């Protein structure tokens, strides 16, 4: 009996003793009185543990009580769905925004592409004019004292008298000035018109020239002059 109560009995001895207890009430009574004596003895010799032990225990078991433990599964489930739904909405919004950004970007790129294709077509057309026509004569116009780095080219069709100008390198003029192209024919300057610097065009078509020994470009007041008045930038013979 003592070893049973004090936890010293083996599993087999315990089962045996429990069997006896259920059969003999006096044995159960004896066990009970020994347990009571043991408890009384222990209570009389109680020692106070450290003050913070109780709070530590309650911290550790906090929230593990029955009433609380029954709920979490259901709550967690709804929370999970809520979070999942929220995540979906955020992802959808992000995706829409991203799509819109891509759409706008695509539109800009498409515009740029169209512009570039148009430029390329016009350049190809210009080159065709020069390459396929055996009557074209070329005059390279070199920079003069006013602007030694300047350089431009004139292509002249000797049969149709069409004149095409390529501005390889000319400084951007002031807003109240314009470049003017001249043909030198029989020693006299003939006006072939004013032109603006257009980057997207390779060749600028000027006025027709019936005949020429050379070409030159001067910087004139806006709209041009009847005879050259401003500084001559480039000149070249055929």
């Amino acid at each position, binding site marked *: *009996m*003592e*070893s049973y*109560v*004090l*936890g*010293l009995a083996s599993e087999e001895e315990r089962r045996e003793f*429990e069997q006896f207890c259920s059969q003999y009430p006096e044995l159960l009574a004896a*066990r*009970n009185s*020994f*347990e*009571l*004596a*043991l*408890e009384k*003895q*222990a*209570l009389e*010799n*109680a*020692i*106070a*543990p*450290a003050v913070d*032990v*109780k709070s*530590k*225990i*309650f911290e*550790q*078991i906090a929230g*593990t*009580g*029955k*009433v609380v433990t029954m709920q979490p599964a259901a709550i967690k489930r709804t929370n999970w769905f809520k979070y999942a739904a929220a995540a979906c909405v955020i992802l959808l919004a992000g995706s829409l925004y991203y799509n819109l950004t891509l759409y706008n970007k695509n539109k800009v790129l498409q515009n740029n592409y169209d512009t570039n294709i148009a430029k390329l077509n016009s350049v190809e057309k210009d080159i065709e004019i020069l390459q396929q026509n055996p009557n074209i004569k070329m005059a390279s116009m070199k920079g003069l004292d006013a602007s030694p780095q300047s350089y431009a080219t004139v292509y002249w069709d000797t049969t149709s008298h069409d004149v095409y100008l390529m501005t390889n390198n000319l400084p951007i003029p002031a807003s109240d000035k314009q470049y003017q192209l001249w043909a030198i024919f029989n020693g006299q300057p003939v006006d072939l018109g004013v032109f603006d610097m257009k980057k997207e065009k390779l060749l600028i078509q000027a006025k027709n020239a019936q005949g020429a020994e050379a070409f030159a470009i001067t910087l004139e007041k806006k709209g041009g002059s009847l005879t050259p008045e401003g500084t001559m930038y480039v000149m070249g013979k055929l």
Partner: protein
Amino acid sequence: MLQQRNEKAFGYLYDNYSGALYGIVNSIVTDKEIANDVLQNVFVNIWRKIESYDSSKGRLFTWMLNIARNASIDEVRSKGFRDSQKNQSLGENVNFPGAVTGPAIDDVGLKKVLTKLKGELRVLVDMSYFQGFTHEEISRALNIPLGTVKTRIRSALIQLRTMI
């Protein structure tokens, strides 16, 4: 109410029995700080296992007492505890089961009762109850036949009953 895991009832249980259980823990685990940690674990285990308590097999206090004793013995036998004791000077707590005059038994609680036992019986009960050795281990350690160990412990426990 306690088996429904009612925290208020558990608080009441602690207030009434923590001292008695701490006395038991303290008689096995002599280091005060460690004894407090063990007591904390004991009550957390009581809380967790309360549903497995069966009143037909004994009083609640007996059930708690055995949890406290087992936890204390586990602590004493753990490597960490033995290491922590190594650096302490040899003193009153040296466990040397072979010596009859041996471990100066702390004069508290059950151990106080134990001092009333005859020397040889006292050692056997001390090793069996307070240190958790099996009868076979005691037989080997003290070089006493197993049958003798069992008989002596039985007679010691019977004597104990009359003393309590």
